C-alpha cells in the first residue's frame, strides 16, 4: 500500500497537476490565438502553362522566361499524357520573312530548354507564325512586348 501511495504521490498527482495546468494554458491560448500555420498542401498546386517573352530581335532567355519555362516543365511532368504546340511569335516591327525565322528560333529555344529539363521532345511541337498572329493588336511597346513570345498550347 505504501508503495501505491508513493506511486500516487510521485506520478499520478504531478501528472494530474500537469494536465490541469496544461488545460489552463490551452484556454489562455484560445483567448489570444497565434496565427495558425498554413495548412500543408494535400494536393500539389497545379501549375499553368505560360507564355515566354523575348526582347526585340532576340530569341534569348532571361531569368523571368526561364522561371516560366520551369513552371511549364512542371506542368508537363504533372500532365504526362499531354503534349504541347509551342508557337513562336514576333511583334509587328521588322519584316515579315525575317520574323518567321525569328519566331521559329523563339519556339525552338523554349523547346530546347524544356528538353534539357527532362521533357520528352516528342511531346513538344514548334511552329512559327512570325508577326502574323499578334496577341495584342496595338502599335506600341506594351503591345509589342506581349507579342514577342513563345506561346504554349496544350493538345
Amino acid at each position, binding site marked *: 500500500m505504501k508503495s501505491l501511495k508513493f506511486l500516487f504521490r510521485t506520478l499520478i498527482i504531478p501528472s494530474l497537476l500537469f494536465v490541469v495546468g496544461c488545460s489552463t494554458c490551452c484556454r489562455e491560448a484560445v483567448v489570444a490565438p497565434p496565427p495558425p500555420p498554413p495548412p500543408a498542401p494535400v494536393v500539389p498546386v497545379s501549375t499553368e502553362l505560360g507564355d515566354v517573352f523575348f526582347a526585340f*530581335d532576340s530569341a534569348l532567355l532571361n531569368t523571368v522566361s526561364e522561371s516560366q519555362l520551369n513552371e511549364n516543365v512542371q506542368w508537363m511532368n504533372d500532365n504526362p499524357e499531354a503534349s504541347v*504546340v509551342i508557337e513562336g511569335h514576333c511583334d509587328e*516591327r*521588322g*519584316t*515579315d*520573312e*525575317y520574323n*518567321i*525565322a*525569328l519566331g*521559329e*528560333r523563339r519556339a*525552338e529555344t523554349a523547346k530546347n530548354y524544356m528538353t534539357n529539363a527532362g521533357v520528352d521532345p516528342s511531346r513538344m511541337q*514548334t*511552329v*512559327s*507564325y512570325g508577326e*502574323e498572329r499578334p496577341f495584342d493588336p496595338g502599335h506600341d511597346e506594351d503591345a509589342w512586348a506581349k507579342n514577342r513570345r513563345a506561346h504554349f498550347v496544350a493538345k
Partner: protein
Amino acid sequence: MVMNKPNLFFRALLVFALYIAVFPALLSAEPVKEYIKISKEGVKRIPLVLKHLDTEKNKNKQYASEIDAIVKRGLDFTGLFAIIRAPLNIISGGELYQAGKRSINFAALSSVGAEVYAGGVLEKKGSTLSLDMEVYDALTGKLLMRKLYQGDKGNMRKLAHRFCGDLVKMFTGKPSIFESKIAFVQLSGGKKEICLAEFDGYGAVVVTRSGGLALTPALSPDSRKLAYLTYTGGKPDLQIKDLATDAIVSVKKKGVKIDPAWRNGTVELATTFSFDGNQELYLLRDNGTITRRLTRHGMIDVSPAFSPDGRKMAFVSSRHGSPQIFILDLFSGSVKRLTYEGKYNTQPAWSPVGDKIAFTTMQKNGEINIFTVNADGRGLRQLTYRARHNEAPSWSPDGTMIMFSSDRSGRKKLYVMNADGRNQRSLRLGGQQMQPSWSTFQLKSSSY
C-alpha cells in the same frame, strides 16, 4: 533651234540612262506636276502629246474613247511620260482619218512643249478593231513608228497595251511591263490569300485556298509558276503551283519554309528550310527536290534574291548580330557583306536589268524605308521618306520601276515608283495588299 537638237531617240535614251543611273536621291513627297520641265539634273519625263483616236464612223467613238483612256492610264503608269493635252490646231487639211489630205502641225506641237506626238485612227469590222498608230518626233517631224494593231473588241485592254508596249520599248530599248504579271498577298476579313493580276493590279484573282494564311508569293520568270508559303492545317508548307494546270507541288519538310525566290535562267528556286535545326538557304527544283545547300551558319539566313544571270544571290543573315544583306557567289562560294548602314536591313530585290539591289531598312524612328545600292555596295540611295512602313520592293521586268507595299495611308496598299523613287502612287486596289512579286520576264509571244 530645231536643227541643233540631236536626234530625239538618242536624247530620250540618254535621258533615260541618266534617269536610272545617276540621278541623286529625291524627295518622294515632291508635288506631282503633270508637266515636268527639264530639271537642273537634266532629268525629265518625255513630253508627249497623245491625240485622241479618230474614227470615221461616229458609232465607233465609244471604242475610241475607251482605248484612249486605257492608253493614257498605261503610259501614265510607266512614269516615263508627261502627257500634254493636244493643241486644237494639231491637224490641218482634213480629219485625222483622211490620211491623204491632212497633215500634222508640228509647230503647234512644239509650242506646247511636246517632243513626241502619238495618235491614230480606229476602225471596226465585225468584232475586230484596228488601230492605225503613228508616232512622230514633234521637234523634227520625223516618223518614229507606224503600226497597225488588230484585236477583238472584247479585249481592248490588250490591244491598247500592245501599242503602249511598243512605244515604251522604243524609248527604253527594253521589253515593257505591259505583258507582265504580279502576285501579291491580299488581306480580306483577317485572312491572307495570294492573288495574281496584271502588272497594274487589273483582273486580280485569288489563286490560293490556304484557309487564311498564305504568304511570300514568288512568280517564276516566265509567270507560269507561283511559289509561296501556306499554313494549311496549321503547319507551314512551301507550295509550287503550275498556274496553267493548277497542279501543286507541296514541299513538306520539317520546320519553316520562308520566302522562296526563283533563280534566273534556271527552273530552280531558293528558299529557307530549318529541317536541319537552323534556318538555312537551299536550292531546289520546281518539282520540290533539293539540289544544293547554300548556307551553313548558326544564325538566320533568309530572303534570297538572284542576280539577272543567276550566278549570285543576295540574302539576309543575322550572322553578325542584327539582320544585314550579304551576297553569295554560287560558283566560288564566297560571301560578301553588302549593307553596313543601319541595324536592320532586309528584303533584298535584285534589279532584273542592272546591278542594283533594292532593300528595306528599319530606322530608329520606327519607319521602314526602301533603298537601292549597287551590287558592289556603293551608290546607296534612299527612295522613300517619312511615309511609315514601306516594304517588300519588287522590280518591274524592265528595271524602270519598283513595286512595294506601304501603310502610309493607314492601310497596307501596293504602290509603284520609278527606280529613282520619283512618282510614287498607289495601285488603288480594294482591301489591303502586301508582298508584291513582279514577274521578271514576260511570256514569250502574246496570245492576242
